[in-house]
């Protein structure tokens, strides 16, 4: 038979997979390079940061940069810990609310039966192409009119409009 076990999602290693590894391993490493670089950069002392020729890996790792960060945070007017807390709160809030909204609407759109379903799915499909930057001016006006400016919620509520996620749960799982 012509079928010689070239299966998707194989359970065992065979020599025929080698060619994929040869392409994928260098590609993955290449994609990770900038990330490895920036982590190394964070631990470099000042003279290494501006050294010529620059080195990819850190020679004498130091925590000084981090100490500096928290020292300026406590001694100057830059409340670093506050920024960190803000970021965490916004992230958690957005995540929890997005899950709630997307799961409920995704469930309704995929499992329930009602008249407007087809139309709603189509509208959602259209909204997938929505480019937020293109309407940032009106979006800002909406935020101001809702009284959300100067408020934590301004970071969270507009981010909840994610047609991509909703359609991921419905459109892709017909």
């Amino acid at each position, binding site marked *: *038979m012509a079928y010689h076990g070239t299966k*998707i999602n194989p359970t065992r290693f065979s020599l025929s997979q080698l060619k994929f590894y040869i392409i994928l391993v260098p590609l*993955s490493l290449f994609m990770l390079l900038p990330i490895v670089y920036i982590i190394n950069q964070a631990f470099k002392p000042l003279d290494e940061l501006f050294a010529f020729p620059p080195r990819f890996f850190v020679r004498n790792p130091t925590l000084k940069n981090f100490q500096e960060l928290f020292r300026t945070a406590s001694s100057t007017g830059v409340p670093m810990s506050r920024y960190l807390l803000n970021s965490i709160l916004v992230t958690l809030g957005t995540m929890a609310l997005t899950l709630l909204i997307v799961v409920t609407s995704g469930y309704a759109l995929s499992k329930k039966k009602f008249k407007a379903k087809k139309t709603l799915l189509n509208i959602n499909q259209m909204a997938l192409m929505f480019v937020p930057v293109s309407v940032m001016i009106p979006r800002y006006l909406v935020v101001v009119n*809702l009284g959300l400016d100067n408020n934590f919620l301004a970071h969270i509520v507009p981010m*909840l409009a994610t047609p991509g996620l909703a359609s991921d749960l419905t459109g892709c799982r017909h």
Partner: protein
Amino acid sequence: MSKIRSRFQNRTFGDAFYAFILLAPYAVIFMLFIAIPIAVAIVLSLTYFNVIEPPRFTGLLNYITLLTQDEIFSRYVLPNTFKYALIIGPGGYILSFLTAWMLAQIQKVPRTIMALALYTPSMVGPVFITVVFRTLFSGDEAGYINALLIRLELIDKPIQFLLSPDYIMDIMIFVSLWSSMGIGFLAMLAGILNINEELYEAAYVDGLKNRFQEIIYITVPSMKPQMLFGAVMAIVNAFNTGWIGVALCGSNPTPGYSGQLIVNHIEDYGFQRYEMGYAAAVSVALLLMVTVFSKIAHKLFTEKD
């Protein structure tokens, strides 16, 4: 099957009621932050609005200006946007599909690790991308790329990568491709892995010869929804990542308008010159462009039956 069941149980009314309750939060958010802004953008695009005075209706003047008098738009912004979108959209899409497909051919554990490695760049976000690539492409000889080129004796003095009109576009394309394996890539990987293996076996019995035919006749047709999702995401991403150029060189407009995309043009007019009406008209043009491209993607990937 489901039709028969619903006819017997006649639960359509109950379902509609619950669906309404479940959909309400999403619908409200959707109206507020997608539908209304689009409507407002269309209305604003027909006015002259400088944020201080109330908008003054000017009809189609903004669009006429955009098409006939905005030389920066027609000479730099539009060609740049098309070049960028045509490389990033299809390029990122094909790259995502090929890597997803190759990942599907290997075992689970290495696949998961490598998928994570490939997905990471799209997760890290604008600030990280800016910091990393501004240090990598830094214009002095301590910049990594410059130092490497000097050591290889390809150049003898550092190149101002991020400030020179000759390089900024290529760097933008490189950075975007680097971070292009996002949610579309994951959807495609899941799609390939979910294909019924019996299909492949049956196809080989029917005379399928190689992996290339496997992709054309089985893989792609079996995962059309994911392919469509990936395509639309790639298009949106291509038009959406305009911030990269401005973030990399640190100024809007970018040097010599060489990396100026339509999104930067909107920011330039809307938030630096405060010509909101005109910026809104450009926004509507952008929405139309994305819609046209997505329509093409829909034509290509939706089921014909």
